[in-house]
């Protein structure tokens, strides 16, 4: 019987694990101790706001973020007025009273402004490479935020003998090592409003945190609910077990 149970446990562990197992083509990706890890994890609000600053001042010149609206920024600690002002920096297409196309200031409900009008324009401006939309990037890559952090720190001298194609950069983490994105971050690239020193390491952590939030904005709600659900189910398990034990005694005579 115990071998039976052991076997079943192994079945679950291996069977479920196999689906996730996959070949990791890149270099070693360091697993960081993110504040949002674990059952009680939450996002670091200061890191989120710094990360948004990095996104806005650096990433957003090439990368879109089309599933986010300006209003979502209230979730990371911006006030309603700040969000309104942020949105008003951008123009969105509209129709005037005569029905002719015009533009108006973006509202908080509008999606993040995309740097290029379409894919062709994006490729033309980036040597044929398409900068991926960043809304879901932290869930769309194996390793998630760890991968983003490692990639941004993965720019190194091209080793001798490596044939780097024109217009590409050498990156130890990117699959194939030849990445279309030139090294985006260097020390003090942005000036943080809260005075934090903007090293590449700091900026890459902040922007990875921001991108994780962008990909999974309900992460905190989910984990908080999960803790409550587990507590409830734990109690339910105790009560259903006691109930079962009582009827078993009565019905089986032992």
């Amino acid at each position, binding site marked *: 019987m115990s*071998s*039976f149970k052991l*076997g*079943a446990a*192994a*079945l*679950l562990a*291996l*069977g*479920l694990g*196999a*689906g*996730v*197992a*996959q*070949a990791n*083509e890149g270099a070693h990706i360091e697993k960081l101790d993110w504040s949002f890890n674990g*059952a009680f994890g939450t996002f670091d609000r200061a890191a989120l706001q710094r990360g948004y600053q990095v996104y806005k001042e650096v990433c957003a010149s090439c990368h879109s973020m089309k*599933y986010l609206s300006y209003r*979502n920024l209230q979730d990371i600690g911006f006030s309603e007025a700040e969000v309104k002002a942020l949105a008003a920096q951008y123009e969105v297409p509209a129709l005037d009273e005569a029905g002719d196309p015009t533009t108006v200031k973006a509202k908080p409900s509008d999606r993040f402004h995309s740097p290029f009008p379409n894919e062709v324009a994006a490729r033309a401006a980036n040597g044929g490479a398409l900068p*991926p939309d960043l*809304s*879901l990037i932290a*869930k*769309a*890559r*194996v390793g*998630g935020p760890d991968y983003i952090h490692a990639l941004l720190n993965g720019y190194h001298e091209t080793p001798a003998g490596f044939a780097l194609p024109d217009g590409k950069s050498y990156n130890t983490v990117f*699959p194939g090592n030849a990445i279309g994105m030139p090294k985006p971050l260097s020390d003090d690239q942005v000036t943080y409003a809260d005075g934090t020193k903007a090293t590449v390491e700091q900026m890459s952590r902040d922007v990875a945190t921001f991108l994780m939030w962008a*990909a999974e*904005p*309900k992460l905190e*709600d*989910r*984990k908080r*609910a*999960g*803790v409550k*659900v*587990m507590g409830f*189910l*734990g109690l*339910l*398990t105790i009560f*259903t*077990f006691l*109930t*079962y034990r*009582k*009827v*078993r005694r*009565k*019905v*089986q*005579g*032992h």
Partner: protein
Amino acid sequence: MSSSTPFQTNSKVIKWIEARLPIISTIDGALVSYPAPRNLNYWWNFGSLAGFMLVAQIVTGIILVMHYTPHVTLAFASVEHIMRDVNYGWLLRYAHANGASMFFVVVYIHILRGLYYGSYKAPRELLWWLGIVIFLLMMATAFMGYVLPWGQMSFWGATVITNLFGALPMIGGDIVTWLWGGFSVDNATLNRFFSLHYLLPFVICAVVFLHLWALHTTKSSNPLGIEIKGDQDTVPFHPYYTAKDAFGLSVFLMFFAYWVFFNPNALGHPDNYTEANPMVTPAHIVPEWYFLPFYAILRAVPDKLGGVIAMGGAIVILFFMPYLDFSKVRSAKFRPIYKQAFWLFVIDGLILGYVGAMPAEGIWIIIGRIASVYYFAHFIIIVPLISWFEKPLPVPESIAKAVLGDAAKA
């Protein structure tokens, strides 16, 4: 305690209904007074858990459909709308996506329990066959459901699997075009998959109804594999197994909740968070974990048609189990050699699952081929041979005697 008593009532209203449609006594017979063997162990919990998962998938699915848009230009964005803007949309979607995995976990254990305890043997062949039909319908439903979010793995998984039909001689190409509703996986494909993904769960419900009808006709098998000989061998389903199933469900829900709340994307593939793009092929196209053993068998055969036949055969062969195993004894408890063969088969399935997740190259091809051959050898050679030469241990006289000892008034 004496066993089940038939349905009785003094209520005039219920008597009136019963005389016209005996629905209340039927429900009573199925869920309350149903005489169940008194020795069922926890492996018998997984049938009701599978029923629970079917209902959970239908309920979450129906609500998701209220917010989802089946169109190639809108599907991916509508899933993000569910995740970001719909109240508790993240919970619905994660419960539904992980629910599919949970359904398969439960059903695989349910099937393996049947194989271990010989539940497929006479008089339960139809019960077993209906179960396999449910399993096949589940696979079709899960496959088409995975296409709906219209991510990269949705699109390429659909392309790979539908292309398999192209291996059929003569008519293959036409069949694939017919399945797609065009010349590639596109909007027509997404729409028909959506339609069928909504339909099939209700077909599953109908077959589950037949499965239960057959169950209540032959009655449940049990760990001893001997038939019920009288009232002393059984207990009424309620309260004994309703209470036990409630306990099992509570434990299972914690397992389910772990994935939904704390690791919701672990069982999926990161590529499916990139919108489908027919111009970019993912480095590795991998199906969901529950298809991996069959995917490994498909890839083990060098010929495309041969691979498709082997993959289909891997499930079809289950239908023959009542005849491949002709041992007089049902339960592996009394079959020392079959018991070992069973566990080797389980290990073989796990190896196949692992190989299915690996790229088809190098050592994985060889391991995949050996494990695939063993899979079929288990059914075609090992099981019949064991039935032939194995000397089973003595089987107890009755369930009551085995459970309660000689003191039982047998």
